[in-house]
């Protein structure tokens, strides 16, 4: 009986070790990663199925605001060109809207602020697990895209940012369902003030039904494309390209 117990016990320990090294080995296999990744498409379709296209993420009240909204990722883009924009309040900054549009635009911060403003108090959920509640003021992305006039072939909206990680700029992308969602805004203000640099000044994306890394900061250019394959390294975002984060970040 004891030998049986020992046998089963060592079997258990052996299985544990095998599981660990086996999982690491599986994780290095591109085929296996592909199998796991296919569940991401399933997750996106399932979430889109149970969620109305225009369903709004919860909006909170002033009393729910996080006392301190931590900044994450880049808190000061390193390029001299960007830093030269700061002293006069981004008066020389322009948002470029181009790609598959009828009328490419170049918009100043004043022009964006003159457009209809949406204010929303929402919960920001980081992929790491923390959450912070902030108040955002901005122009609905749909209005900007409509004034540029999307071409029929446009499928995704890419946000090019001013911050670099090594050789690569930060960027993100969303599809047209999220791009035209009422709460998807290009925010120029936060908590009743103009956006500060750690939180993405002069302009950042809010795409409230997805995780924090989709909310690109320091947006310089909005580009409409028909495919993400040709954009940087092809997976639709800086973290997607560099560490294989999921492109759809609804969970």
């Amino acid at each position: 009986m004891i030998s049986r117990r020992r046998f089963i016990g060592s079997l258990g320990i052996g299985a544990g070790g095998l599981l660990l090294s086996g999982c690491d080995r599986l994780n290095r296999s591109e085929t296996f990663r592909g199998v796991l990744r296919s569940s991401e498409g399933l997750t996106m379709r399932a979430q889109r199925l149970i969620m109305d296209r225009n369903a709004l993420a919860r909006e909170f009240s002033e009393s729910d605001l996080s006392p301190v909204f931590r900044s994450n990722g880049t808190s000061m883009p390193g390029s001299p060109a960007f830093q030269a924009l700061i002293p006069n309040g981004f008066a020389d900054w322009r948002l470029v809207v181009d790609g598959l549009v009828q009328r490419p635009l170049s918009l100043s911060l004043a022009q964006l602020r003159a457009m209809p403003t949406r204010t929303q108090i929402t919960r920001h959920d980081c992929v790491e697990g923390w959450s912070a509640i902030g108040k955002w003021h901005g122009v609905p992305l749909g209005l900007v895209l409509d004034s540029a006039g999307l071409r029929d072939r446009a499928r995704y909206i890419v946000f090019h940012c001013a911050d670099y990680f090594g050789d690569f700029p930060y960027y993100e992308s969303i599809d047209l369902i999220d791009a035209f969602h009422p709460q998807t805004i290009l925010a120029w203000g936060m908590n009743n003030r103009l956006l500060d640099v750690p939180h993405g000044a002069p302009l950042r994306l809010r795409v409230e039904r997805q995780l924090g890394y989709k909310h690109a900061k320091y947006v310089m250019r909005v580009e409409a494309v028909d495919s993400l394959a040709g954009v940087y390294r092809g997976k639709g975002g800086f973290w997607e390209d560099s560490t294989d984060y999921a492109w759809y970040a609804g969970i």
Partner: protein
Amino acid sequence: MSASKAAEVPGPRELEARRPDGKLVLRHRLPTRIWHWVNALVVFIMLMSGLMIFNAHPRLYWGSYGANYDKAWLVVGSTPSRGFVEVAGLRLDTTGVLGRWTDRRGVVVRRAFPYWATIPSSYNLAAGRRWHLAFAWLLALGLPLFWAVSLLNGHVRRDLAPRRDELSPGHIWEDIKDHAQLRFPKGEAALRYNILQKLSYAAIVFVVLPLLVMTGLTMSPAVDTALPWLPDLFGGRQSARSIHFILAALTSLFILVHLVMVVLAGPFNEVRSMITGRFRIPPEPAEEEGQ
């Protein structure tokens, strides 16, 4: 088919089963066995990839929001020389296991859970999430399927639901004493789950696992948009994350006790019964022979 039904009307097979050499009888039906082994794998992967995700932000909060500047009720952290767990302000030194530990190559790492507890074994949030969110589908779809099959084939009614007399405090206390003294049922009684087994299995199947799935979904901003009652139910996303972690800890405790019990009750017979379904009835004590 059912052993417990046979016990009500002792027949020749029943008498044969009481012979000291013990008889092989069917104990676990095929759906139970399949679900058990699928879950044995899935739950381990969920726990270990979950700890990888936890390592990305090893702090837990109550309420809707919670980040570095907010008050955490649980923190796994480190000083330059020690690892610690802080629960409700009480700091426990966990150097070597949690917060600060040594990896396979002897390198000191200051991170919450050690390499041997996470999938993958090195820090990789993208991979941990990919494993967790893929296998979550198997857990979340397998559970209601198992409920449906077990309701239909009588597993719930016959094996899991406690009888009224079993729920009396006296009976439960007797069973606690039996467990504490490692007295395991013999003969026909070994075929039925005792009350502590029934309660713990039912708690895992009908409370802990579904709540794990639900609190997991509550961490999704998209699911919260589609089903806003979910964050309300758990008191906000960060509360849901805390409850998710507590339930995962309870699941780990359940697995630990379950494995210890399997080993103590006779691992060969128990494991065989969960693989082939066949269980050898442990012989009655000698003085009860021939009754």
